[in-house]
């Protein structure tokens, strides 16, 4: 087996040129079974310096298209005082990189850019180099500077020594120093500047290697045969039905998992289509038309997020009480390319090329799938089609691993579009949300009550739960256990990770306001129930759905008391950063301050309006606001968004262009989700199975102008930034529809039918 150190030595020559394209070839050559990830408290686990002074950095946070690889390389270049081009970043290989769990939850930026991990490794390495330089040059550390890969005398730039001469190809043998000083963002020269995506030239010329392009010598091709209906089980498989087909190598059956392996992918696809399988159907699915009320009747696990125990009394004494119910559908990741993986399982060892967002959990859970020791499973992350949470990347990795194990050769599996959409990914959860609030005689909110019902099944596989995704369940593992609990215990600490608590609530615990708002009479009760479909963390999970309800309802309250929606929000917000996000978005949009709906708008034909929404993402992981200008065709119910202005405060900004790219994409993805995207089903199966039945806005729709407002906070901690703008789109657009027409659409997506129905209900 070749060690990580050998890998570094061998790759030294490559360090001078930054190219992620170098990585797969190297990783494949040295890709033996993992012996375990390098320890995260050791500097050598994160940073290596080659003989030529080039820097190789190792991270457990991967590039998915969100731009974090660029920002991480900037971070290392900044802390080590080298140019961006001198840093080569390797991420998410279970044999090479520190275990940082999964890349998700807007956590990469806070995890690696504040006071630990990659950031602290960079600072520790710089200080170590300064000490080594001091010894070599005979000059005290406080009279030295690090610059452009050299340690040199502050007063005499001719007295210098290069990093390669100081440490090149040798270990630091240091633990991360929590006191090593991070650079002040005000002194940044690499971070804080827009840096182009290094992978892009390869991507646009068709040279980039996605997981779909991985080819291993002797590789065969597999296809899976999923159940035709939800919960159906295998009664019989007639292997002879495909035995004579060209190229067929093997039919693999393991409980309810079925796959076909062939020499070529087209042959595997043909055989999978012809294989005769008899299935035993499961009980019918709950009706989609009555699904919202179905959720209210299910056994639930109840949780209070906040409860001041005075909400009913305050509501009883309020001048006016408003109630509304919102519904958000299941939605898909709907990855553009159907998921793919390559596995080589030979004897008791496995190598997996996977686009999973969690290589270490794939390693441990796939070991269970294969009956191997985790240390014998090596997972190499390879980029796939954009994921946004939990598409079929994990389940297709199990598919490939199972088929490879059955034939003893490497196998590549790519799902069909239908398999991806109906039997591959874990959907974003549906949500039913009741909102209730009381206002006093001055129109101020005196109490707020929120209650939600959300169905879940499975999740990320985690350390030991392969049954959290479909392939694991098909071979007999169980999804994470569901334990009903009612009534909910009293909450003991403030946690707004799900944004279940509206931004306007005080979140009062231990005599202090932990929330971002001012409303002290508060109750948020969450009911988790069992879903008929697999669910998982689709971009802004729960946060998007809750924010849709909270920010729509806040608009309804403002309209009830005839207040301007921006002023009304600010009136109930105590948090300076969230307030600033609202104010800056409103200012950039030249916000038309007045109550909604807009007076004098026509009741027929086209009507225009504007809406706003804001969020403190996960309570404290990014602050954002969005203003939308939209036009509603009141005869057809069609909504056209004309302009989106979105502000974001994510602490010190690492890469302004990367941040803008995320804000723009999030805004439009959120717009697509709330205007057309909805998982559908009949009595027995999912019916949204392709791009005709699941409606994603195409490139050529009338794309609105998207303007971004970046709020740089050099003195604050880095927060997440990839999920804020998407969180706001549904509410901001719904509020613009209301402003234009006076009609409130409380069910997403805002299809023309639903908009017409809301228009018809206007008084």
């Amino acid at each position, binding site marked *: 087996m070749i060690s990580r150190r050998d890998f570094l030595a061998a790759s030294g020559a490559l360090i001078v040129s930054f190219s992620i394209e170098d990585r797969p070839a190297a990783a494949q050559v040295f890709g033996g079974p993992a012996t375990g990830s390098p320890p995260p408290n050791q500097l050598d686990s994160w940073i290596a310096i080659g003989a030529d002074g080039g820097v190789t950095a190792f991270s457990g946070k991967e590039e998915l298209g969100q731009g974090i690889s660029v920002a991480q390389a900037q971070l290392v270049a900044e802390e080590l005082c080298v140019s961006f081009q001198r840093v080569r970043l390797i991420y998410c290989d279970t044999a090479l990189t520190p275990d940082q769990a999964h890349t998700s939850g807007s956590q990469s930026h806070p995890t690696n850019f504040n006071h630990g991990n990659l950031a602290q490794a960079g600072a520790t390495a710089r200080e170590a180099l300064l000490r080594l330089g001091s010894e070599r040059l005979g000059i005290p550390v406080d009279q030295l500077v690090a610059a452009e890969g050299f340690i040199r005398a502050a007063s005499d730039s001719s007295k210098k020594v290069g990093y390669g001469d100081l440490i090149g190809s040798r270990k630091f043998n240091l633990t991360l120093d929590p006191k090593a000083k991070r650079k002040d963002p005000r002194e940044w020269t690499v971070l804080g500047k827009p840096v182009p995506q290094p992978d892009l030239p390869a991507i*646009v010329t068709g040279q980039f290697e996605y997981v779909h392009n991985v080819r291993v010598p002797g590789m065969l091709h597999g296809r899976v045969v999923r159940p035709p209906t939800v919960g159906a089980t295998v009664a019989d498989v007639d292997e002879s039905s495909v035995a004579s087909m060209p190229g067929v190598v093997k039919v693999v059956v393991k409980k309810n998992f079925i796959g076909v392996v062939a020499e070529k992918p087209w042959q595997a696809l043909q055989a999978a289509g012809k294989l005769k399988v008899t299935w035993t159907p499961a009980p019918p699915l709950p009706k989609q038309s009555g699904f919202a009320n179905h959720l209210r009747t299910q056994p639930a696990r109840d949780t209070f997020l906040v409860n001041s125990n005075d909400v009913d009394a305050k509501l009883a004494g309020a001048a006016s009480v408003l109630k509304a119910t919102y519904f958000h559908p299941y939605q898909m990741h709907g990855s553009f390319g159907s998921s793919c993986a390559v596995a080589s399982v030979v004897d008791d060892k496995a190598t997996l090329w996977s686009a999973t967002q969690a290589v270490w959990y794939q390693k441990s859970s796939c070991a269970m799938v294969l009956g191997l020791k985790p240390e014998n499973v090596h997972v190499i992350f390879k980029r796939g089609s954009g994921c946004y949470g939990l598409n079929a990347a994990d389940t297709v990795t199990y598919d490939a691993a199972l088929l490879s194990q059955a034939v003893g050769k490497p196998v590549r599996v790519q799902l069909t579009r239908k398999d991806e959409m109906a039997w591959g990914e874990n959907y974003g959860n549906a949500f039913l949300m009741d909102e209730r609030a009381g206002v006093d005689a001055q129109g101020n909110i005196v109490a707020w009550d929120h209650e939600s019902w959300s169905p879940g099944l499975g999740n990320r596989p985690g350390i030991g739960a392969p049954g959290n995704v479909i392939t694991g369940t098909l071979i007999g593992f169980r999804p994470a256990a569901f334990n009903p609990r009612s009534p909910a215990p009293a909450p003991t600490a403030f946690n707004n990770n799900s944004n279940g608590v509206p931004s306007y609530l005080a979140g009062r615990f231990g005599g202090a306001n932990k929330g971002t708002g001012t409303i002290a009479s508060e109750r948020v009760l969450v009911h988790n129930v069992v879903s008929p479909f697999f669910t998982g963390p689709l971009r802004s999970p729960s946060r998007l759905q809750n924010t849709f309800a909270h920010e729509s309802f806040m608009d309804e309250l403002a309209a009830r008391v005839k207040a301007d929606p921006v002023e009304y929000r600010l009136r109930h917000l105590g948090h300076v950063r969230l307030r600033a996000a609202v104010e800056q978005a409103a200012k950039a949009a030249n916000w038309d301050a007045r109550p909604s709906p807009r007076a004098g708008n026509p009741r027929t034909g086209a009507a225009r309006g504007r809406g706003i929404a804001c969020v403190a993402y996960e309570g404290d992981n990014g602050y954002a606001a969005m203003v939308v200008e939209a036009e509603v065709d009141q005869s057809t119910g069609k909504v056209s968004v004309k302009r989106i202005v979105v502000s974001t405060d994510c602490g010190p900004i690492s890469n302004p262009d990367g941040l803008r790219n995320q804000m723009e994409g999030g805004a439009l993805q959120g717009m697509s989700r709330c205007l057309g995207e909805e998982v559908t089903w009949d009595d027995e199966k999912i019916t949204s199975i392709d791009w005709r039945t699941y409606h994603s*806005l195409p490139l*050529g729709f009338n794309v609105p102008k998207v303007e971004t407002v970046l709020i740089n906070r050099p003195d604050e901690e880095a927060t997440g930034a990839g999920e804020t703008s998407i969180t706001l789109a549904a509410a901001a657009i719904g509020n613009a529809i209301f402003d234009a027409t006076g009609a409130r659409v409380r069910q997403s997506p805002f299809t023309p039918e639903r908009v017409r129905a809301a228009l018809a209900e206007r008084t």
Partner: protein
Amino acid sequence: MSAITLKVNGRTHNLDLDPATPLLYALSDDLALRGPKFGCGLAQCGSCTVIINGTAVRSCVRPVSSVVGAEIVTLEGLGTIDKPHPIQKAFIDEQAAQCGFCVNGIIMTAKAFLDKNPKATEAEIQQAMSGVLCRCFTHVRMLAAIKRYAKGIKA
């Protein structure tokens, strides 16, 4: 299986394939090209688009038997990392990608359309792009890149 001759990016390839095999499979699996990609296999997303005799074609549903002798151009056939085609350069200049998986379909569809319709209006470009998807929703930058390329043709 049959002997099938394909002309791809100016080179001739003699392959042994089921004539019903979709062109995409031949390009991806037999010729190991990375530009055209499998997105849906249903001609709904644009991921597999190639240009055949000047027209954008969805290679996931086009049997190889129907393109024998045709001039097939893939994303790789436009330009290289060192010398990108003007439309590829426009995407780099606008930083017009996130995951990048859809880029093939966007570039090949836009190029085929604009080369035939160099004076297309913005509305006509949008219409031409109405059948391709980007799920990261990098729409703003991609449309800017397409317009940048269109401007270059006109100039």
